């Protein structure tokens, strides 16, 4: 069982959360016309073996979107912050 340290609710079980997606991916500017930029955004991933930035939704808690740093090899938890603060 993963336990995620939600900045609002504290340490909670993974079953309260829904995994979102890779948070290191950023959407290109809406005026971007380079097809490869969009291809990269939609399909290609770093898929790291180690620290990974990812979105989680605390759907059964505060309902906030979070950005969590988690090690994909050891499940070691790093920083967990509100997505709206990370995007600033």
């Amino acid at each position, binding site marked *: *069982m993963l336990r995620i340290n939600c900045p609002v609710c504290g340490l909670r079980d993974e079953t309260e959360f829904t995994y979102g997606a890779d948070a290191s991916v950023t959407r290109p500017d809406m005026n971007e016309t380079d097809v490869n930029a969009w291809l990269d955004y939609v399909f290609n991933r770093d898929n790291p073996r180690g620290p990974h930035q990812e979105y989680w939704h605390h759907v059964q808690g505060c309902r906030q979107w979070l950005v969590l740093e988690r090690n*994909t090899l050891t499940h070691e938890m790093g920083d967990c912050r509100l997505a709206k603060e990370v995007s600033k």
Partner: protein
Amino acid sequence: MGYYSAFSIFRHALSGNKNWGRAWRDPAPKPAYDVVIVGGGGHGLATAYYLAKEHGIKNIAVIEKGWLGGGNTGRNTTIVRSNYMMPGNTLFYEHSLKLWEDLSQDLNYNVMISQRGQYNLCHSQGQMDAARRRGNVMRANGIDAELFDRNEVRERLPYLDYSNNARFPVQGAIFQSRAGTARHDAVAWGYARAADQCGVDIIQQCEVQGYLWENGKVVGVETTKGPIRANKVGLAVAGHSGHLATKAGLRLPIESHALQAFVSEPLKPMVDTVISYGAAHFYISQSDKGGLVMGGDLDGYNSYAQRGGLPIVEHSMACAKALVPSISRLRLLRHWAGIMDMSMDGSPFITKTSIDGLYLNGGWCYGGFKATPASGWNFAWLLAKDEPHEEAAEFTLDRFERGYQIDEKGVGPQPNAH
């Protein structure tokens, strides 16, 4: 090594079974090969075998970080089937099933293929319609498929929940009678032994740490046992595709996710077929030792850890109980996880990469085991001829930029949803 036969069993019995030779050699790596395959699972070993047997290339090495079949080849639920609907998939998986049917004779190694049939249950009229369409596509391609209604399924699988309390009542099923199971370890060992007899060097306990480069071309691999040069390097490393691609500077349309499987304590024969639940991701069969073999959903988040989380254990067992109420008091004996290379459309890659000399076989999602023979056969074809065979021609990396994804489930670029 010799040829395995009833006679050889009899002859070795007379000498107390003390003189069986090794099934394959344990050579030190040579400085250079024609082809180096990274990954000693079913796909890598099958590739080496078909390269040697079909294309006459003998100077081949298979390099494995751990031991043979210690990755996903030894961590799956051993199901073999060819009920795929999308162009690009259908005929590929059917070729694989045909290779499975003769594999024990071909390899002179009993892979214990058991064509016990597979039911995909349907729980709504919509699912029945989709199953009918899938069945028609299969039959149009010469693959066997039958559609059963609720009463026919009940006759054949009397132990499912047909009560008024069933959470998702069974409406019917699509059935493939040639589907079944095979012994997963025997697949790795059989291919390893057959490849070794063709002269392939199988090098275990040897991790690839990087590549050898010349003018932007990959000309070999850097390993824990020193550099090994090769004209062509083929990756067949399943869940670690992303990891090894990163070392070559490639980004792939792949995420690595953990998938769990479970075995119960042994029972007398009960489930004499393979059953897939249609209401959730769950499937069940029974091993020859009597344990119920069950598989479920992905854990849902990226993972390279070969272990799974408890929420999925609970979820999978809830599915088991909902489908087959009589096993509710059965205990689980073991559970384990493998790392799936989940591609963005749920379909695999057997392809050249943008780097000369580097070839990729990956993105098998949950479906790698059944694909083993055809994957090896087609990857060997690609490595030998530098162009894909037509049955695997769609499994390229550039299908995303061309807009030709093979999305069997129709869920879009969500690796954890395929």
